[in-house]
């Protein structure tokens, strides 16, 4: 257990720093994916037309390739991609991409369509009367979305969102293969130099199991709070 001590003689601080990277990565990319997924769900609400087709192609690509591949692509090629995107605006720069931001962008890219699909289904399941009532009261468009439809859709989509959160959390483990010093990478270094793989990887397993369990508990509590206006028999 001395090996887990904080400071120079143990690996506690390295592991903690790695866990912090993992948490940051998971939270930022999930938040980004949730925002982009909401936009995508609204833009692709009608199952026909150009936007829907573009959305389907994007979803097919993003859900058809492993996220590690996207991470590598953005890590190696992100500078070039950004350069190509910036040139039309007259900015001739080649910004360097840090592994963390490459990973965040890649995970957000991959998980946006998953969340968009969930939310689109949920928006379509919000009772029609809600939209009609809001329109009859001439509530502004923006408020219909932000105040009426999205909160109810989010409640319906909540369990699916939690599932995707757990999948994404475990997917962050792959970033160590792209050279990011997350929890896995820290555990690998520690177990390599101490020859105690069971201890360090055990810590990692415990971290992931407990972190997932804690966030699921938190989410369930939040879901109950969101559902407080719904009679249990209907839920």
């Amino acid at each position: 257990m001395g090996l887990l001590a904080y400071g120079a003689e143990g690996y506690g601080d390295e592991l903690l720093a790695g866990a912090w990277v993992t948490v940051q990565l998971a939270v930022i990319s999930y938040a980004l994916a949730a925002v982009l997924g909401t936009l995508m769900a609204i833009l692709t609400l009608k199952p026909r037309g150009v936007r829907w087709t573009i959305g389907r192609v994007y979803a097919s690509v993003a859900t058809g390739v492993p996220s590690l591949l996207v991470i590598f692509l953005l890590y190696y090629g992100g500078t070039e991609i950004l350069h190509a995107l910036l040139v039309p605006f007259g900015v001739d720069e080649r910004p360097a991409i840090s592994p963390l931001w490459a990973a965040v962008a890649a995970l957000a890219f991959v998980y946006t369509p998953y969340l968009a699909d969930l939310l689109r289904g949920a928006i379509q399941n919000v009772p029609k009367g809600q939209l009609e009532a809001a329109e009859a009261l001439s509530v502004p468009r923006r408020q219909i979305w932000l105040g009426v439809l999205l909160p109810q859709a989010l409640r319906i989509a909540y369990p699916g969102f939690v599932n995707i959160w757990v999948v994404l959390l475990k997917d962050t483990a792959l970033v160590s293969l792209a050279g990011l010093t997350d929890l896995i990478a820290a555990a690998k270094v520690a177990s390599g130099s101490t020859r105690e793989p069971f201890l360090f990887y055990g810590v990692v397993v415990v971290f992931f199991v407990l972190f997932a369990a804690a966030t699921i508990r938190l989410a369930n509590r939040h879901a109950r709070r969101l559902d407080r206006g719904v009679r249990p028999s209907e839920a």
Partner: protein
Amino acid sequence: MSFDFALAWDSLPALLNGAWMTVLITASVMAVGAVLGFGMCLVRMSRNRVLAAIGAAYVAVFRGAPSIVLLYLVYAGLPQLSVVRETPLWILFASPLFCAILGLGLNHSAYVVEILRGGLSAVPPGPVEAALALGLSPRLVFLKVRLPIAVRYGLKAYQNEALIFLKSTVAVGAVTIADLTGAANEIFSMTYDPFTPLVTAGVMYWLLTNGLRLALETLDRRLNRHLAVGVPDRRPATARQADPGAALFRRLRRSPAKPAE
């Protein structure tokens, strides 16, 4: 930012080699996961409290841990035990491929346990009672009635898991196996072309995941062909509305020429 077709063509053999490794691992892990998952599902659903707790712990640990950690544990951890190092087991554990299949298999099987359990507990009591009333032995009832129904119920969830798991095989790079991603990375490090090898590999992954998806959807349709309504109607909404009863008759249209009984 450009795609180099000549390089893509030249690197095709190496990438196909990697893709073959990905397919090999995926197929082996699906087999291991099915066997292990079925066994552990019986343990998990056992009436014996201790066995059920062991099953629950199995699921919690192997489903909760990222597969890459399980790979490291099997590949770097188990050989630390003298039981593994000083017995013939070592021949197995010295092979990265075996470790990869075992590590991913543990992860995958934990999902199979939960999917199968969900399916089994959703089986309606009617058919089971009917089979028992007809005097079928409990074992036969399980194998011929409950399990087939449970598999049909669980197949959609299994498809989701199988696709996620196929993509998570990239983790085998951690135990020095050159799969499709590894091959693409190798070509990147030789050419410093950040797009061509990775995009080509991405296309191959896309083909693999969609091939697997189509295969499982076909299986789903075949197993559920008695439920014409359950067949997902993939035609555009306009066509569906024009012919409201069509879903019920599609099966008849697809397989005609069956003599009436």
